[in-house]
């Protein structure tokens, strides 16, 4: 699987997940957006046939709306609740992305999601990629995946190990 194919699969999972979970309609962008607004970032680490991390970065205002939609409430939401909602989002995203990229029969262990204050640069390298998405009202969300090894190696092994 090429990196472009991986990005396309991740994009599909991200748009589908936010639509089902938070009634949020996202469009993948060709470029990574530079977000000036204050954001919240959450991350999960995973282990298994491949080690790595997945990170989600969301502007605070949008994150509040996501939490409200997930919980079905209208009022302003406490920051801890917003954080928990995003943690569950990244947990679900990662659980859906790994089998899609690395083989449906592989067993991964996904750690507990945690908040990160500063996102260390996961640029589009051979070990990972970032994808940005735009919401209908113009907010930008970014999802990134970083592996311990190169993407190319990892995806080859995944294909060899899967039956489909």
């Amino acid at each position, binding site marked *: 699987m090429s990196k472009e194919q991986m990005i396309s699969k991740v994009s599909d999972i991200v748009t589908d997940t936010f639509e089902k979970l938070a009634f949020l309609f996202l469009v993948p962008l060709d470029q990574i957006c530079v977000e000036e607004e204050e954001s919240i970032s959450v991350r999960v680490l995973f282990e298994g046939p491949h080690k790595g991390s997945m990170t989600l970065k969301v502007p605070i205002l949008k994150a509040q709306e996501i939490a409200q939609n997930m919980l079905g409430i209208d009022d302003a939401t406490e920051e801890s609740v917003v954080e928990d909602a995003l943690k569950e989002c990244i947990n679900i995203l990662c659980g859906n992305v*790994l089998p899609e990229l690395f083989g449906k029969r592989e067993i991964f262990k996904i750690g507990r999601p945690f908040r990160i204050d500063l996102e260390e640069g996961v640029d589009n390298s051979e070990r990972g990629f970032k994808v940005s998405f735009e919401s209908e009202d113009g907010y930008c969300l970014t999802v990134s995946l970083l592996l311990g090894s190169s993407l190319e190696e990892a995806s080859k092994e995944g294909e060899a190990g899967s039956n489909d």
Partner: protein
Amino acid sequence: MSFNILLVDDSAVMREIIKKTLRLSGIPLGELLEGANGKEGLELLNNNWVDLVIADINMPVMDGEEMLDAMKKDENLKDIPVLVVSTEGSESRIERLKAKGVRFLRKPFSPEKLRDEIYDLLGVNYHEQRADDF
């Protein structure tokens, strides 16, 4: 008749989402019990009458699969229907869970899908139930 349901998930947000879906589903609800891991789930099962368990897999302290194994070994708990609601994507692990006699629903799910799975598991006919409501 109403159903006592136990929710076991380490995410409080996910428990809220499931509770919201249950309330909107029209399922006659008795007590809703909540645990944040398998160990808490087992304690609640031992002290309460539960008609259905909705459990996550990936949890700290004791995961959902360990909880399920403990339930299967317990004469009083082994026949309680279990719906696993998880992000688990590995087909081998899902098959292993299904072989233990549970239903599996992948996150993210639509509220309708969750409702239908529960109606099915509880053996309640949704349309009859709705007709009763009016």
